[in-house]
């Protein structure tokens, strides 16, 4: 089987409770990180549990990398323990009667894996849990527990890693402690991830592909920057509305403490970053930090002024206009006042310039 051609997830589920219906039909790339985003009650966790086989749906079809895991039409249903997946629960859900090491070995003992000690210790190292191996779960902090839980799923080399709000039960500090691990994880291990969250921050930081769920239905499904900038979704209306660009470091301007990066459509100056030239970065630009001008300003303290084209305009809340632009091929969102939109006579197709006041680097 040619895996390169079959790296897809096809998921169709129909589930009907008294108070909740789930009805999805998705085709997702099975590579990188796909985030299932939605508010509580949107069905994102239910969908993940269906994919894991932990929950049954009345009608279902699930195909991962070309093999069918379930198909209600022909009565096929692979039980959870026969699915080559990894699952990280919201609460770490470690076995309380086993040490960290025994927790990690629990799954390994049950698969016919060649003894890959190298890989085992690479994962232990990646998650920084080597000093915890002989402890009982009750003696771990919340963040440590979750790291062990992630390692426990990863050592099985799953075909897909399912994560159900793995950071939701942690405080902000612990979240920041784990997020870098998650980013490194999929850079280094190349295991596709399906990640459930309701956090904008985690979407911006982790997602390559984004599925937006609302009341059990798929509202949108597409690559991150396209989906984030869709004006028909509430994501673009939110105060935290952002766009995420992938850029590459090309120059360090040490005199000014700046780093210059390029992207598909121009270049940006960022506060100095300690990384080699050629390093890929992910930058997040808040829509509220983007302003629109008609001509290149002759004198401005803002460094990043780029030519852009207006692609779409929508009304936001309380006198706001939400503008979707394209800079080169990169979509960009701007939140401006409706008055400015009228004064500047902004129209779809118009060529303008954007000033970006600030951005944050996500990795």
């Amino acid at each position: 089987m040619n895996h390169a051609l079959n790296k897809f997830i096809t998921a169709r589920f129909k589930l009907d409770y008294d108070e909740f219906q789930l009805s999805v039909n998705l085709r997702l790339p099975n590579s990188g990180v796909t985030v299932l985003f939605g508010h509580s009650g949107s069905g994102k966790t239910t969908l993940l549990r269906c994919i894991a086989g932990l929950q049954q749906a009345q009608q279902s079809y699930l195909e991962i990398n070309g093999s069918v895991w379930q198909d209600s039409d022909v009565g096929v249903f692979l039980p959870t323990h026969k699915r080559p997946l990894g699952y990280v629960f919201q609460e770490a859900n470690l076995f309380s009667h086993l040490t960290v090491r025994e927790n990690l070995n629990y799954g390994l003992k049950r698969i016919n894996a060649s003894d890959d000690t190298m890989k085992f210790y690479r994962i232990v190292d990646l998650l920084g849990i080597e000093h915890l191996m002989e402890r009982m779960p009750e003696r771990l902090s919340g963040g440590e527990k979750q790291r062990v839980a992630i390692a426990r799923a990863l050592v099985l080399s799953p075909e897909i890693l399912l994560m159900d709000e793995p950071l939701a039960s942690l405080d902000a500090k612990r979240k920041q402690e784990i997020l870098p691990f998650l980013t490194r994880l999929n850079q280094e291990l190349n295991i596709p991830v399906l990640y459930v969250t309701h956090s904008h921050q985690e979407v911006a930081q982790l997602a390559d592909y984004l599925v937006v769920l609302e009341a059990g239905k798929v509202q949108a499904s597409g690559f991150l920057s396209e989906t984030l900038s869709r004006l028909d979704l509430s994501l673009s209306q939110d105060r935290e509305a952002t766009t995420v660009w992938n850029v590459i470091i090309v120059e360090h301007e040490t005199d000014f403490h700046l780093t210059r990066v390029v992207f598909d459509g121009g270049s940006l100056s960022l506060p100095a970053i300690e990384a080699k030239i050629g390093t890929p970065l992910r930058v997040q630009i808040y829509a509220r930090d983007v302003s629109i001008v008609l001509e290149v300003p002759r004198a401005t303290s803002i460094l990043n002024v780029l030519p852009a084209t207006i692609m779409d305009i929508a009304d936001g809340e309380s006198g706001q206009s939400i503008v979707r632009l394209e800079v080169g091929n990169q979509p960009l969102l701007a939140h401006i006042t409706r008055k400015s939109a009228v004064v500047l006579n902004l129209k779809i197709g118009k060529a303008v310039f954007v000033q970006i006041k600030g951005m944050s680097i996500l990795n």
Partner: protein
Amino acid sequence: MLTSADFTTLILTFKVASLATIFMLLFGTPLAWWLARTRSKWRGIINTFVALPLVLPPTVLGFYLLILLGKNGIVGEFTTWLGIGTLPFTFAGLVVASVLYSMPFVVQPLQTAFSNIGEQPLEAAATLRASPIDTFFSVVIPQAKSGFLTATILGFAHTVGEFGVVLMVGGNIPDKTRVVSVQIYNHVEALEYSQAHWLAGGLLAFSFTVLLILYTVLKTTPHVK
């Protein structure tokens, strides 16, 4: 001091209680597991049957068992057809009656222990390639350890202490069905109070020790609803 007849009843009591406890664990474990997890409408009625010996006078249970296991009872006819005769007034009959009588003391602690484990560890095990049976042995039993200890101790101790059912189903046959509690009764009837003291005192010490272990060492509450 204890006579050799007393010792015989002690050994017999120990045999009955041990065998009954083994059977109660064998049948009670799957039953408790089912009761802890099922959403079946039968759950209520099965629970009631299991708990019945808690409130029923032992003589009532003994009476019905006698009829059921006797020559004209359904079970009695079946055992006769099997060629093993009828069970009343035999050692085997005593064990059968004990199992039924002490069952709630085994099933209820197990059921509580299983419910307390919850769904989460079972789901974690499934995502780590463990089949349901595998999960039962590698997760449920270790996590319900104190439930099993409580069930074993209570089941054993309660069987040792029974009287009414034993007398009805087992009778009072030396070497075959005469257990300690019946022997104490015999001593008292014969006005052998010092003999009765030895056995009764022994049983009292035994029960006290067992409960002390449960409440202090295991720190569990013998949970009987």
